[in-house]
């Protein structure tokens, strides 16, 4: 299954580019590409509903929001001073160490492959809709409350007070 390894390498590479790109716009575009690669992984996992939602919500809505904010902020005039090299090195070493710990902890884990043919319909809209509207109906409705609160919060934070500092 060479395509899996190709897609994984592509995902990791573009994720690294998100972190290390100098220009924030490039960073956002690499992140969109990363999300498309992750959607490809969802297709390989036969999770087609998640693939569609990932593209629509993440690559479509959230990333456009990021892009708009970056374009609004005019970041060109204040090029961010980089942290001291020691801090950057410490952060990179810490992240790498965490990865080593994760791999060491899961190295001898034997999770096995997928079992039988029962799972072919798992990620389809039909089975997900049945479980979402039956078992998870209350969390689904609570999400709407969360969205409402988030919307009110964003409007309140974005409102410009007359001549006042906001914090």
């Amino acid at each position, binding site marked *: 299954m060479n395509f*899996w390894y190709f897609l994984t390498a592509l995902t990791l590479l573009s994720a690294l580019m998100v972190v290390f790109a100098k220009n924030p716009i490039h960073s956002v575009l690499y992140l969109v590409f990363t999300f498309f690669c992750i959607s490809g992984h969802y297709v390989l996992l036969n999770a087609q509903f998640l693939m569609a939602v990932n593209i629509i919500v993440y690559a479509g809505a959230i990333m456009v929001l990021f892009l708009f904010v970056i374009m609004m902020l005019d970041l060109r005039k204040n090029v961010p001073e980089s942290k001291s090299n020691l801090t950057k090195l410490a952060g990179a070493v810490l992240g790498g160490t965490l990865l080593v710990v994760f791999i060491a902890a899961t190295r001898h884990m034997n999770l096995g492959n997928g079992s039988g043919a029962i*799972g072919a319909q*798992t990620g389809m809209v039909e089975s997900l809709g049945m479980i979402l509207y039956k*078992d998870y109906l209350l969390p689904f409705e609570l999400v709407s409350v969360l969205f409402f609160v988030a919307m009110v919060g964003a409007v309140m934070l974005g409102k410009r007070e007359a001549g006042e500092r906001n914090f």
Partner: protein
Amino acid sequence: MQQLPDVIRQIPLNNYVWFSAALFCIGIIGVLTRRNAIIIFMSIELMLNAVNLLLAAFSSYKADPAGQVFVFFIMAVAAAEVAVGLAIIVMIYRNIQSIDVGILNKLKW
């Protein structure tokens, strides 16, 4: 698609664990090394996506749709978080004309 996809039969689940761990660690490195608040935010999105991918992988391998419902909820929470977080970033920029998190050190005292 009536039968199990090839990936589930040929790729062991451990590979997904390591792949998600790598993606998560890239996100952590981004949070720790960058100063631009928006890029820190994007690194957090990366970490959320690593978790999403792992949940979806386990859900598909074990044929349990509940994991994918969780991914759906995580996406909803991430969308709300991004809306509020970007509003905060815009407000910070309006007040101090910068989104460098190194300048925002007043909360330390």
